[in-house]
Protein backbone atom coordinates (compact mmCIF):
# COMPACT_ATOMS: atom_id res chain seq x y z
CA UNK A 1 0.00 0.00 0.00
CA UNK A 2 2.72 2.39 1.05
CA UNK A 3 4.83 1.69 -2.00
CA UNK A 4 1.71 2.09 -4.17
CA UNK A 5 1.09 5.52 -2.68
CA UNK A 6 4.75 6.45 -3.06
CA UNK A 7 4.60 5.41 -6.69
CA UNK A 8 1.63 7.68 -7.30
CA UNK A 9 3.20 10.62 -5.53
CA UNK A 10 6.41 10.15 -7.55
CA UNK A 11 4.45 9.91 -10.80
CA UNK A 12 2.47 13.08 -10.11
CA UNK A 13 5.59 14.91 -9.02
CA UNK A 14 7.42 13.96 -12.22
CA UNK A 15 4.37 15.02 -14.27
CA UNK A 16 4.19 18.33 -12.40
CA UNK A 17 7.85 19.03 -13.13
CA UNK A 18 7.59 17.92 -16.76
CA UNK A 19 4.64 20.22 -17.46
CA UNK A 20 6.32 23.03 -15.54
CA UNK A 21 9.34 22.94 -17.85
CA UNK A 22 7.12 22.70 -20.94
CA UNK A 23 5.20 25.75 -19.74
CA UNK A 24 8.33 27.82 -20.48
CA UNK A 25 7.54 27.46 -24.18
CA UNK A 26 4.48 29.64 -23.61
CA UNK A 27 6.33 32.15 -21.45
CA UNK A 28 8.24 32.55 -18.20
CA UNK A 29 5.93 31.86 -15.26
CA UNK A 30 5.80 30.90 -11.60
CA UNK A 31 5.50 27.20 -12.35
CA UNK A 32 8.65 27.23 -14.47
CA UNK A 33 10.49 29.29 -11.87
CA UNK A 34 9.68 26.73 -9.18
CA UNK A 35 10.89 23.89 -11.40
CA UNK A 36 14.05 25.82 -12.28
CA UNK A 37 14.79 26.55 -8.62
CA UNK A 38 14.31 22.89 -7.67
CA UNK A 39 16.43 21.73 -10.61
CA UNK A 40 19.34 24.05 -9.79
CA UNK A 41 19.35 23.12 -6.08
CA UNK A 42 18.93 19.38 -6.52
CA UNK A 43 21.44 19.08 -9.36
CA UNK A 44 24.12 21.25 -7.72
CA UNK A 45 23.78 19.04 -4.64
CA UNK A 46 23.85 15.90 -6.74
CA UNK A 47 27.13 16.82 -8.43
CA UNK A 48 28.81 17.87 -5.22
CA UNK A 49 27.86 14.56 -3.65
CA UNK A 50 29.11 12.69 -6.72
CA UNK A 51 32.45 14.57 -6.73
CA UNK A 52 32.82 14.16 -3.00
CA UNK A 53 32.41 10.39 -2.94
CA UNK A 54 34.00 9.56 -6.31
CA UNK A 55 36.98 11.90 -6.21
CA UNK A 56 37.69 13.04 -2.68
CA UNK A 57 36.72 9.84 -0.91
CA UNK A 58 37.32 6.97 -3.38
CA UNK A 59 40.29 8.42 -5.25
CA UNK A 60 42.03 10.46 -2.56
CA UNK A 61 41.03 9.21 0.89
CA UNK A 62 40.96 5.51 0.03
CA UNK A 63 44.09 5.88 -2.12
CA UNK A 64 46.09 7.59 0.60
CA UNK A 65 44.80 6.04 3.84
CA UNK A 66 42.80 2.89 3.23
CA UNK A 67 44.54 0.94 0.45
CA UNK A 68 47.38 -1.21 1.89
CA UNK A 69 50.86 -0.09 0.79
CA UNK A 70 51.43 -3.28 -1.20
CA UNK A 71 48.35 -2.74 -3.38
CA UNK A 72 49.07 0.87 -4.25
CA UNK A 73 50.25 1.84 -7.73
CA UNK A 74 53.86 3.08 -8.03
CA UNK A 75 52.81 6.71 -8.34
CA UNK A 76 50.15 6.83 -5.60
CA UNK A 77 51.83 9.88 -4.08
CA UNK A 78 50.52 12.00 -6.97
CA UNK A 79 47.30 12.13 -4.97
CA UNK A 80 49.03 14.39 -2.45
CA UNK A 81 50.03 16.79 -5.23
CA UNK A 82 46.39 16.99 -6.34
CA UNK A 83 45.20 17.67 -2.80
CA UNK A 84 47.93 20.28 -2.24
CA UNK A 85 46.88 22.11 -5.40
CA UNK A 86 43.24 21.85 -4.31
CA UNK A 87 44.06 23.42 -0.95
CA UNK A 88 45.99 26.23 -2.69
CA UNK A 89 42.81 26.84 -4.66
CA UNK A 90 40.89 27.41 -1.44
CA UNK A 91 43.33 30.16 -0.46
CA UNK A 92 41.13 32.44 -2.55
CA UNK A 93 39.01 32.72 0.53
CA UNK A 94 41.90 34.43 2.36
CA UNK A 95 42.23 37.88 0.75
CA UNK A 96 45.89 38.42 1.67
CA UNK A 97 47.17 35.25 0.00
CA UNK A 98 44.36 34.84 -2.52
CA UNK A 99 46.80 35.32 -5.40
CA UNK A 100 48.35 31.91 -4.66
CA UNK A 101 45.17 30.32 -5.99
CA UNK A 102 46.48 31.25 -9.45
CA UNK A 103 49.11 28.52 -9.13
CA UNK A 104 46.72 25.59 -9.43
CA UNK A 105 44.94 27.50 -12.20
CA UNK A 106 48.24 27.99 -14.04
CA UNK A 107 48.94 24.29 -13.52
CA UNK A 108 45.62 23.26 -15.07
CA UNK A 109 45.84 25.67 -17.99
CA UNK A 110 49.46 24.72 -18.75
CA UNK A 111 48.75 21.00 -18.57
CA UNK A 112 45.65 21.31 -20.75
CA UNK A 113 47.47 23.41 -23.34
CA UNK A 114 50.37 20.95 -23.46
CA UNK A 115 48.22 17.85 -23.66
CA UNK A 116 45.87 19.22 -26.31
CA UNK A 117 48.70 20.62 -28.42
CA UNK A 118 50.17 17.23 -29.27
CA UNK A 119 47.10 15.01 -29.11
CA UNK A 120 44.96 17.26 -31.29
CA UNK A 121 47.80 17.84 -33.70
CA UNK A 122 48.04 14.08 -34.15
CA UNK A 123 44.32 13.28 -34.31
CA UNK A 124 43.01 16.37 -36.09
CA UNK A 125 45.84 17.42 -38.35
CA UNK A 126 48.10 14.45 -39.16
CA UNK A 127 45.40 11.79 -39.23
CA UNK A 128 42.99 13.87 -41.32
CA UNK A 129 45.68 14.76 -43.86
CA UNK A 130 46.69 11.10 -44.12
CA UNK A 131 43.06 10.06 -44.61
CA UNK A 132 42.53 12.67 -47.34
CA UNK A 133 45.45 11.46 -49.44
CA UNK A 134 43.68 8.74 -51.47
CA UNK A 135 43.56 7.85 -55.18
CA UNK A 136 40.60 9.44 -56.97
CA UNK A 137 40.29 6.32 -59.14
CA UNK A 138 42.21 3.08 -59.50
CA UNK A 139 43.55 0.96 -62.35
CA UNK A 140 40.49 -1.28 -62.75
CA UNK A 141 38.09 1.54 -63.66
CA UNK A 142 35.20 -0.48 -62.27
CA UNK A 143 34.21 2.05 -59.62
CA UNK A 144 30.81 3.66 -60.25
CA UNK A 145 31.08 7.20 -61.53
CA UNK A 146 29.48 8.69 -58.40
CA UNK A 147 32.15 7.12 -56.27
CA UNK A 148 34.84 8.83 -58.36
CA UNK A 149 32.93 12.11 -58.14
CA UNK A 150 32.65 11.53 -54.38
CA UNK A 151 36.44 11.13 -54.13
CA UNK A 152 37.00 14.34 -56.12
CA UNK A 153 34.49 16.13 -53.88
CA UNK A 154 36.29 15.02 -50.70
CA UNK A 155 39.66 16.25 -52.00
CA UNK A 156 38.32 19.54 -53.42
CA UNK A 157 36.07 20.14 -50.39
CA UNK A 158 38.87 19.64 -47.88
CA UNK A 159 41.19 21.84 -49.95
CA UNK A 160 38.78 24.75 -50.36
CA UNK A 161 37.46 24.40 -46.82
CA UNK A 162 40.99 24.91 -45.54
CA UNK A 163 41.40 27.93 -47.80
CA UNK A 164 38.38 29.50 -46.09
CA UNK A 165 40.19 29.28 -42.74
CA UNK A 166 43.30 31.18 -43.91
CA UNK A 167 43.69 34.28 -41.76
CA UNK A 168 46.66 36.00 -43.30
CA UNK A 169 45.42 36.29 -46.85
CA UNK A 170 42.53 38.36 -48.05
CA UNK A 171 39.65 36.43 -49.61
CA UNK A 172 39.94 38.08 -53.00
CA UNK A 173 40.38 36.91 -56.62
CA UNK A 174 40.95 33.20 -57.19
CA UNK A 175 41.71 32.71 -53.50
CA UNK A 176 38.42 34.35 -52.58
CA UNK A 177 36.51 32.18 -55.05
CA UNK A 178 38.12 29.07 -53.59
CA UNK A 179 37.15 30.24 -50.10
CA UNK A 180 33.56 30.69 -51.33
CA UNK A 181 33.54 27.10 -52.57
CA UNK A 182 34.90 26.17 -49.15
CA UNK A 183 31.96 27.89 -47.42
CA UNK A 184 29.65 25.97 -49.74
CA UNK A 185 31.10 22.69 -48.46
CA UNK A 186 30.99 23.86 -44.86
CA UNK A 187 27.31 24.73 -45.23
CA UNK A 188 26.55 21.26 -46.61
CA UNK A 189 28.42 19.79 -43.65
CA UNK A 190 26.39 21.88 -41.22
CA UNK A 191 23.16 20.96 -43.00
CA UNK A 192 24.06 17.28 -42.85
CA UNK A 193 24.69 17.45 -39.08
CA UNK A 194 21.52 19.45 -38.62
CA UNK A 195 19.38 16.97 -40.55
CA UNK A 196 21.06 14.04 -38.85
CA UNK A 197 20.12 15.28 -35.35
CA UNK A 198 16.53 16.35 -36.03
CA UNK A 199 15.09 12.84 -35.72
CA UNK A 200 16.84 12.11 -32.44
CA UNK A 201 15.55 15.39 -30.97
CA UNK A 202 12.02 14.45 -32.00
CA UNK A 203 12.38 11.10 -30.29
CA UNK A 204 13.23 12.89 -27.01
CA UNK A 205 9.98 14.77 -27.20
CA UNK A 206 8.11 11.58 -28.02
CA UNK A 207 9.71 10.05 -24.91
CA UNK A 208 8.33 12.79 -22.65
CA UNK A 209 4.91 12.65 -24.34
CA UNK A 210 4.89 8.93 -23.79
CA UNK A 211 5.55 9.51 -20.09
CA UNK A 212 2.69 12.02 -19.83
CA UNK A 213 0.08 10.17 -21.83
CA UNK A 214 0.95 6.59 -21.03
CA UNK A 215 2.68 6.43 -17.61
CA UNK A 216 0.84 9.31 -15.98
CA UNK A 217 -2.55 9.77 -17.62
CA UNK A 218 -2.70 6.18 -18.88
CA UNK A 219 -4.50 7.35 -22.02
CA UNK A 220 -2.27 5.22 -24.23
CA UNK A 221 -1.77 1.59 -23.37
Amino acid at each position, binding site marked *: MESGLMHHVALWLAAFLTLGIFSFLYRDNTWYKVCEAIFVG*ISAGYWFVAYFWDNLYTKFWVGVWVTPMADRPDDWYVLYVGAALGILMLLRLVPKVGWISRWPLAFIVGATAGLYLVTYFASNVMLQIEDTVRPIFGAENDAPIYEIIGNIVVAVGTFTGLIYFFFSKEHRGAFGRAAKVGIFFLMITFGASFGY*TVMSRMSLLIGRMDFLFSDWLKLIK
Partner: protein
Amino acid sequence: MLFRVAIAFACLFIIAGVAGQPAGDTALAVQQTIAPVTSLIATNHEYDNGTGIDLIWVPSIDDRLAPSRVTGYEVWRSVVGGSGSRIAELPAGANKFTDEQCSRESTYVYSVVAISVAGNAVSISTAPIQPAREWINLHRLNLLAIAFLVSAAVIYFIQSARSGKKLFVRKIAGLDAVDDAIGRATEMGRPILFIPGIQDMDDVQTIAAITILGRVSRVVADYDTKIKMPVSRSLVMTAARETIKASYMAAGRPDAYNDDMVSYVTDEQFGYVAAVDGIMVREKPATCFYLGAFFAESLILAETGNSVGAIQIAGTAMPAQIPFFVAACDFALIGEELFAASAYLSNEPKQLGSLKGQDVGKAVALVVIVVGTMAATIGSAWDVTFMNQLWSALKVVFQTN
Protein backbone atom coordinates in the same frame (compact mmCIF):
# COMPACT_ATOMS: atom_id res chain seq x y z
CA MET B 1 7.37 -68.28 -13.27
CA LEU B 2 5.66 -65.13 -14.40
CA PHE B 3 8.18 -63.15 -12.38
CA ARG B 4 11.14 -64.74 -14.18
CA VAL B 5 9.60 -64.09 -17.62
CA ALA B 6 9.12 -60.45 -16.66
CA ILE B 7 12.78 -60.09 -15.63
CA ALA B 8 13.92 -61.79 -18.84
CA PHE B 9 11.85 -59.37 -20.93
CA ALA B 10 13.14 -56.41 -18.97
CA CYS B 11 16.72 -57.52 -19.65
CA LEU B 12 15.95 -57.89 -23.32
CA PHE B 13 14.52 -54.36 -23.47
CA ILE B 14 17.58 -52.95 -21.78
CA ILE B 15 19.97 -54.70 -24.14
CA ALA B 16 17.91 -53.66 -27.16
CA GLY B 17 17.79 -50.11 -25.89
CA VAL B 18 21.53 -49.86 -25.48
CA ALA B 19 22.18 -51.48 -28.85
CA GLY B 20 19.73 -49.11 -30.52
CA GLN B 21 21.69 -45.94 -29.46
CA PRO B 22 22.71 -43.83 -32.47
CA ALA B 23 26.28 -44.45 -33.55
CA GLY B 24 27.16 -40.69 -33.57
CA ASP B 25 27.98 -40.40 -29.90
CA THR B 26 30.74 -42.90 -30.03
CA ALA B 27 32.00 -41.37 -33.27
CA LEU B 28 32.92 -38.19 -31.36
CA ALA B 29 35.29 -40.08 -29.22
CA VAL B 30 37.32 -41.19 -32.17
CA GLN B 31 37.43 -37.72 -33.78
CA GLN B 32 41.01 -36.54 -34.32
CA THR B 33 42.49 -33.89 -32.07
CA ILE B 34 43.80 -30.68 -33.65
CA ALA B 35 47.33 -29.51 -34.40
CA PRO B 36 48.89 -26.81 -32.16
CA VAL B 37 50.03 -23.39 -33.38
CA THR B 38 53.62 -23.25 -34.63
CA SER B 39 56.48 -20.74 -34.78
CA LEU B 40 55.36 -18.95 -31.62
CA ILE B 41 57.77 -16.06 -31.05
CA ALA B 42 57.82 -13.50 -28.25
CA THR B 43 59.54 -10.14 -28.78
CA ASN B 44 59.82 -6.97 -26.74
CA HIS B 45 57.05 -4.46 -27.55
CA GLU B 46 58.93 -1.47 -28.91
CA TYR B 47 58.87 2.06 -27.52
CA ASP B 48 57.00 1.50 -24.31
CA ASN B 49 57.83 1.76 -20.64
CA GLY B 50 58.83 -1.88 -20.43
CA THR B 51 55.31 -3.18 -20.02
CA GLY B 52 54.64 -4.98 -23.29
CA ILE B 53 55.58 -8.22 -25.04
CA ASP B 54 54.46 -8.97 -28.62
CA LEU B 55 53.56 -12.54 -29.56
CA ILE B 56 53.15 -13.85 -33.10
CA TRP B 57 52.47 -17.38 -34.30
CA VAL B 58 51.30 -19.40 -37.27
CA PRO B 59 47.73 -20.58 -36.57
CA SER B 60 46.98 -24.27 -36.19
CA ILE B 61 46.79 -26.04 -39.52
CA ASP B 62 43.25 -27.08 -38.59
CA ASP B 63 42.33 -23.39 -38.38
CA ARG B 64 42.99 -23.02 -42.08
CA LEU B 65 40.30 -25.51 -43.12
CA ALA B 66 36.81 -24.32 -43.97
CA PRO B 67 34.97 -24.64 -41.69
CA SER B 68 37.74 -24.27 -39.14
CA ARG B 69 37.96 -26.95 -36.50
CA VAL B 70 39.60 -24.50 -34.11
CA THR B 71 37.13 -22.51 -32.02
CA GLY B 72 39.67 -20.13 -30.53
CA TYR B 73 43.02 -19.64 -28.82
CA GLU B 74 44.12 -19.07 -25.27
CA VAL B 75 47.33 -17.25 -24.41
CA TRP B 76 49.08 -18.52 -21.27
CA ARG B 77 51.86 -16.74 -19.46
CA SER B 78 54.08 -17.94 -16.67
CA VAL B 79 56.63 -15.97 -14.74
CA VAL B 80 59.95 -17.76 -14.56
CA GLY B 81 60.09 -19.16 -11.08
CA GLY B 82 56.34 -18.66 -10.60
CA SER B 83 52.99 -20.06 -11.65
CA GLY B 84 51.25 -19.73 -15.01
CA SER B 85 47.87 -18.25 -15.87
CA ARG B 86 45.62 -17.64 -18.83
CA ILE B 87 45.89 -13.99 -19.90
CA ALA B 88 43.76 -13.85 -23.05
CA GLU B 89 41.13 -15.64 -25.10
CA LEU B 90 41.19 -14.95 -28.82
CA PRO B 91 38.90 -15.99 -31.69
CA ALA B 92 39.85 -18.54 -34.35
CA GLY B 93 42.15 -17.07 -37.02
CA ALA B 94 44.11 -14.96 -34.51
CA ASN B 95 47.87 -14.94 -35.04
CA LYS B 96 49.17 -12.23 -32.74
CA PHE B 97 48.70 -10.70 -29.33
CA THR B 98 50.34 -7.97 -27.26
CA ASP B 99 50.59 -8.53 -23.53
CA GLU B 100 50.59 -5.04 -22.03
CA GLN B 101 50.47 -6.08 -18.39
CA CYS B 102 54.12 -7.04 -17.90
CA SER B 103 56.58 -5.88 -15.31
CA ARG B 104 60.14 -4.87 -16.19
CA GLU B 105 61.46 -6.88 -13.26
CA SER B 106 60.06 -10.25 -14.40
CA THR B 107 60.96 -12.79 -17.05
CA TYR B 108 58.10 -14.50 -18.85
CA VAL B 109 57.41 -17.65 -20.84
CA TYR B 110 54.36 -17.85 -23.11
CA SER B 111 52.40 -20.63 -24.75
CA VAL B 112 49.31 -20.61 -26.95
CA VAL B 113 46.59 -23.25 -26.68
CA ALA B 114 44.43 -24.02 -29.71
CA ILE B 115 40.89 -24.90 -28.59
CA SER B 116 38.51 -27.27 -30.37
CA VAL B 117 35.48 -29.38 -29.53
CA ALA B 118 37.62 -32.50 -29.81
CA GLY B 119 40.29 -31.27 -27.42
CA ASN B 120 43.02 -28.69 -27.01
CA ALA B 121 46.54 -28.50 -28.37
CA VAL B 122 49.31 -26.70 -26.51
CA SER B 123 52.13 -25.04 -28.44
CA ILE B 124 55.80 -25.22 -27.59
CA SER B 125 56.64 -22.48 -25.06
CA THR B 126 58.59 -19.37 -26.04
CA ALA B 127 62.09 -18.70 -24.87
CA PRO B 128 62.12 -16.70 -21.58
CA ILE B 129 61.84 -12.97 -22.25
CA GLN B 130 62.06 -9.83 -20.15
CA PRO B 131 60.39 -6.62 -21.38
CA ALA B 132 62.70 -3.66 -21.96
CA ARG B 133 61.96 0.02 -21.61
CA GLU B 134 62.88 2.63 -24.23
CA TRP B 135 63.49 6.28 -23.45
CA ILE B 136 62.34 7.79 -26.73
CA ASN B 137 59.34 6.70 -28.79
CA LEU B 138 60.85 6.59 -32.27
CA HIS B 139 57.44 5.74 -33.77
CA ARG B 140 56.40 9.28 -32.99
CA LEU B 141 59.43 11.02 -34.49
CA ASN B 142 57.36 12.12 -37.48
CA LEU B 143 54.74 13.64 -35.17
CA LEU B 144 57.50 15.41 -33.25
CA ALA B 145 59.08 16.71 -36.45
CA ILE B 146 55.89 18.05 -38.04
CA ALA B 147 54.50 19.49 -34.79
CA PHE B 148 57.89 21.15 -34.27
CA LEU B 149 57.79 22.59 -37.80
CA VAL B 150 54.35 24.13 -37.30
CA SER B 151 55.22 25.37 -33.80
CA ALA B 152 58.44 26.89 -35.13
CA ALA B 153 56.43 28.72 -37.81
CA VAL B 154 54.07 30.09 -35.14
CA ILE B 155 56.97 31.25 -32.96
CA TYR B 156 58.82 32.70 -35.96
CA PHE B 157 55.87 34.87 -36.95
CA ILE B 158 55.27 35.93 -33.34
CA GLN B 159 58.90 37.08 -33.19
CA SER B 160 58.85 38.78 -36.57
CA ALA B 161 55.63 40.65 -35.66
CA ARG B 162 57.25 41.64 -32.37
CA SER B 163 60.14 43.18 -34.23
CA GLY B 164 57.72 45.44 -36.05
CA LYS B 165 57.01 43.61 -39.29
CA LYS B 166 53.51 44.43 -40.56
CA LEU B 167 51.19 41.45 -40.85
CA PHE B 168 47.89 41.24 -42.65
CA VAL B 169 44.96 39.45 -40.97
CA ARG B 170 41.66 39.20 -42.80
CA LYS B 171 38.45 40.41 -41.24
CA ILE B 172 36.44 38.02 -39.08
CA ALA B 173 32.88 39.37 -39.13
CA GLY B 174 31.81 37.84 -35.82
CA LEU B 175 34.73 39.44 -34.02
CA ASP B 176 34.42 42.82 -35.71
CA ALA B 177 30.88 42.88 -34.34
CA VAL B 178 32.00 42.53 -30.71
CA ASP B 179 32.50 46.25 -30.03
CA ASP B 180 29.19 47.22 -31.62
CA ALA B 181 27.36 44.47 -29.78
CA ILE B 182 28.68 45.67 -26.42
CA GLY B 183 27.99 49.28 -27.40
CA ARG B 184 24.41 48.33 -28.19
CA ALA B 185 23.97 46.84 -24.71
CA THR B 186 25.38 50.01 -23.18
CA GLU B 187 22.98 52.21 -25.12
CA MET B 188 20.01 50.03 -24.24
CA GLY B 189 21.04 49.89 -20.59
CA ARG B 190 20.84 46.10 -20.66
CA PRO B 191 23.45 43.56 -19.60
CA ILE B 192 25.55 41.34 -21.83
CA LEU B 193 25.52 37.63 -21.14
CA PHE B 194 28.69 35.60 -21.50
CA ILE B 195 28.37 31.79 -21.55
CA PRO B 196 31.75 29.97 -21.63
CA GLY B 197 30.34 26.55 -22.58
CA ILE B 198 29.66 23.76 -20.12
CA GLN B 199 33.08 22.15 -19.83
CA ASP B 200 35.69 22.73 -17.17
CA MET B 201 39.13 24.36 -17.36
CA ASP B 202 40.65 21.09 -18.55
CA ASP B 203 39.05 21.67 -21.95
CA VAL B 204 41.00 23.85 -24.33
CA GLN B 205 37.77 25.39 -25.66
CA THR B 206 36.93 26.72 -22.21
CA ILE B 207 40.42 28.19 -22.00
CA ALA B 208 39.83 29.85 -25.39
CA ALA B 209 36.55 31.23 -24.05
CA ILE B 210 38.28 32.69 -21.00
CA THR B 211 40.95 34.34 -23.14
CA ILE B 212 38.20 35.93 -25.26
CA LEU B 213 36.46 36.99 -22.06
CA GLY B 214 39.64 38.93 -21.27
CA ARG B 215 39.13 41.06 -24.39
CA VAL B 216 35.36 41.35 -24.10
CA SER B 217 35.44 42.37 -20.45
CA ARG B 218 38.01 45.05 -21.26
CA VAL B 219 35.50 46.69 -23.61
CA VAL B 220 32.75 46.11 -21.04
CA ALA B 221 34.86 47.86 -18.41
CA ASP B 222 35.58 50.77 -20.74
CA TYR B 223 31.91 51.22 -21.66
CA ASP B 224 30.71 50.56 -18.12
CA THR B 225 28.27 47.92 -19.39
CA LYS B 226 26.76 45.32 -17.08
CA ILE B 227 28.11 41.81 -17.64
CA LYS B 228 26.47 38.63 -16.39
CA MET B 229 28.27 35.34 -16.51
CA PRO B 230 26.53 32.31 -15.04
CA VAL B 231 28.89 29.30 -15.19
CA SER B 232 28.50 25.59 -14.71
CA ARG B 233 31.94 24.85 -13.25
CA SER B 234 33.53 26.18 -10.10
CA LEU B 235 37.02 26.43 -11.59
CA VAL B 236 35.67 28.39 -14.53
CA MET B 237 34.07 30.75 -12.03
CA THR B 238 37.44 31.34 -10.38
CA ALA B 239 39.27 31.88 -13.68
CA ALA B 240 36.54 34.14 -15.06
CA ARG B 241 36.58 36.34 -11.95
CA GLU B 242 40.36 36.77 -12.18
CA THR B 243 40.00 37.66 -15.85
CA ILE B 244 37.21 40.22 -15.51
CA LYS B 245 38.82 41.75 -12.46
CA ALA B 246 42.07 42.24 -14.38
CA SER B 247 40.16 43.97 -17.19
CA TYR B 248 38.51 46.39 -14.79
CA MET B 249 41.87 47.14 -13.23
CA ALA B 250 43.46 47.69 -16.62
CA ALA B 251 40.60 50.06 -17.49
CA GLY B 252 41.38 51.97 -14.30
CA ARG B 253 38.03 51.17 -12.70
CA PRO B 254 38.74 48.51 -10.07
CA ASP B 255 35.86 49.76 -7.91
CA ALA B 256 33.32 48.95 -10.59
CA TYR B 257 34.28 45.26 -10.45
CA ASN B 258 32.08 42.95 -8.44
CA ASP B 259 32.48 39.20 -7.84
CA ASP B 260 28.77 38.69 -8.51
CA MET B 261 29.34 39.35 -12.21
CA VAL B 262 30.28 35.68 -12.34
CA SER B 263 28.10 33.19 -10.52
CA TYR B 264 28.14 29.43 -10.20
CA VAL B 265 24.84 27.73 -11.06
CA THR B 266 25.18 23.96 -11.22
CA ASP B 267 27.38 21.38 -12.91
CA GLU B 268 24.32 19.68 -14.39
CA GLN B 269 24.01 20.39 -18.12
CA PHE B 270 20.26 20.95 -18.32
CA GLY B 271 19.91 22.42 -14.83
CA TYR B 272 22.39 25.06 -15.97
CA VAL B 273 20.43 25.61 -19.19
CA ALA B 274 17.15 25.98 -17.25
CA ALA B 275 18.73 28.69 -15.10
CA VAL B 276 20.39 30.52 -18.03
CA ASP B 277 17.10 30.48 -19.97
CA GLY B 278 15.44 32.02 -16.93
CA ILE B 279 18.09 34.74 -16.70
CA MET B 280 17.64 35.50 -20.40
CA VAL B 281 13.88 35.99 -20.31
CA ARG B 282 13.98 37.95 -17.06
CA GLU B 283 16.97 40.21 -17.62
CA LYS B 284 16.67 40.46 -21.41
CA PRO B 285 20.38 40.82 -22.25
CA ALA B 286 21.07 42.94 -25.33
CA THR B 287 24.01 40.77 -26.35
CA CYS B 288 24.77 37.10 -25.75
CA PHE B 289 28.14 35.44 -26.21
CA TYR B 290 28.27 31.66 -26.40
CA LEU B 291 31.92 30.72 -26.67
CA GLY B 292 33.45 27.40 -25.66
CA ALA B 293 32.47 23.74 -25.62
CA PHE B 294 28.75 23.19 -26.12
CA PHE B 295 26.60 20.13 -26.47
CA ALA B 296 22.85 19.76 -27.02
CA GLU B 297 22.14 22.94 -25.04
CA SER B 298 23.58 25.12 -27.83
CA LEU B 299 20.28 25.47 -29.64
CA ILE B 300 18.15 25.87 -26.50
CA LEU B 301 20.31 28.83 -25.46
CA ALA B 302 20.53 30.38 -28.92
CA GLU B 303 16.79 30.15 -29.59
CA THR B 304 15.89 31.60 -26.19
CA GLY B 305 18.38 34.42 -26.87
CA ASN B 306 16.63 35.02 -30.17
CA SER B 307 13.27 35.21 -28.49
CA VAL B 308 14.45 38.13 -26.32
CA GLY B 309 15.94 39.93 -29.32
CA ALA B 310 19.59 39.70 -28.27
CA ILE B 311 22.47 40.07 -30.72
CA GLN B 312 24.19 36.71 -30.52
CA ILE B 313 27.84 35.89 -31.15
CA ALA B 314 28.71 32.23 -30.82
CA GLY B 315 31.75 30.07 -31.38
CA THR B 316 32.61 26.47 -30.71
CA ALA B 317 34.87 23.70 -31.93
CA MET B 318 32.18 21.07 -31.37
CA PRO B 319 31.48 19.99 -34.96
CA ALA B 320 27.97 18.76 -34.12
CA GLN B 321 26.91 22.07 -32.54
CA ILE B 322 28.34 24.58 -35.05
CA PRO B 323 25.31 24.12 -37.38
CA PHE B 324 22.89 25.21 -34.67
CA PHE B 325 24.88 28.32 -33.90
CA VAL B 326 25.14 29.08 -37.62
CA ALA B 327 21.36 28.75 -37.96
CA ALA B 328 20.31 30.59 -34.81
CA CYS B 329 22.97 33.25 -34.09
CA ASP B 330 23.89 36.49 -35.80
CA PHE B 331 27.55 35.55 -35.95
CA ALA B 332 29.18 32.16 -35.55
CA LEU B 333 32.90 31.47 -35.14
CA ILE B 334 33.64 28.13 -36.73
CA GLY B 335 36.19 25.83 -35.07
CA GLU B 336 39.59 27.39 -35.65
CA GLU B 337 38.14 30.91 -35.47
CA LEU B 338 37.28 30.31 -31.81
CA PHE B 339 40.95 29.73 -30.99
CA ALA B 340 42.04 32.69 -33.11
CA ALA B 341 39.47 35.05 -31.59
CA SER B 342 41.40 36.28 -28.59
CA ALA B 343 44.50 36.96 -30.69
CA TYR B 344 42.38 38.81 -33.24
CA LEU B 345 40.58 40.89 -30.63
CA SER B 346 43.81 41.77 -28.81
CA ASN B 347 45.10 43.43 -31.98
CA GLU B 348 48.62 42.98 -30.57
CA PRO B 349 51.17 42.25 -33.32
CA LYS B 350 52.71 39.29 -31.51
CA GLN B 351 49.29 37.65 -31.07
CA LEU B 352 48.38 38.26 -34.70
CA GLY B 353 51.73 36.80 -35.71
CA SER B 354 50.65 33.47 -34.26
CA LEU B 355 47.68 33.43 -36.64
CA LYS B 356 50.00 33.75 -39.60
CA GLY B 357 52.07 30.93 -38.12
CA GLN B 358 49.12 28.54 -38.06
CA ASP B 359 48.45 29.42 -41.71
CA VAL B 360 51.80 27.81 -42.49
CA GLY B 361 50.32 24.59 -41.11
CA LYS B 362 47.36 24.96 -43.45
CA ALA B 363 49.65 25.63 -46.40
CA VAL B 364 51.56 22.42 -45.63
CA ALA B 365 48.24 20.54 -45.43
CA LEU B 366 47.12 21.96 -48.80
CA VAL B 367 50.36 21.02 -50.54
CA VAL B 368 50.33 17.50 -49.11
CA ILE B 369 46.68 16.99 -50.08
CA VAL B 370 47.29 18.10 -53.69
CA VAL B 371 50.60 16.31 -54.20
CA GLY B 372 49.48 13.23 -52.30
CA THR B 373 46.16 12.85 -54.10
CA MET B 374 47.85 13.26 -57.49
CA ALA B 375 50.60 10.81 -56.63
CA ALA B 376 48.11 8.27 -55.28
CA THR B 377 45.85 8.56 -58.32
CA ILE B 378 48.59 8.44 -60.95
CA GLY B 379 50.41 5.74 -59.02
CA SER B 380 47.46 3.42 -58.65
CA ALA B 381 45.74 4.09 -61.99
CA TRP B 382 48.81 3.79 -64.21
CA ASP B 383 51.08 1.91 -61.85
CA VAL B 384 53.87 4.50 -61.86
CA THR B 385 56.49 3.30 -59.35
CA PHE B 386 57.83 6.72 -58.40
CA MET B 387 54.33 8.04 -57.69
CA ASN B 388 53.50 5.00 -55.58
CA GLN B 389 56.72 5.53 -53.62
CA LEU B 390 55.84 9.18 -53.07
CA TRP B 391 52.37 8.22 -51.90
CA SER B 392 53.73 5.63 -49.45
CA ALA B 393 56.34 8.10 -48.19
CA LEU B 394 53.65 10.70 -47.44
CA LYS B 395 51.57 8.08 -45.69
CA VAL B 396 54.53 7.12 -43.50
CA VAL B 397 55.26 10.76 -42.67
CA PHE B 398 51.68 11.56 -41.64
CA GLN B 399 50.96 8.27 -39.93
CA THR B 400 50.12 8.50 -36.24
CA ASN B 401 50.24 5.83 -33.56
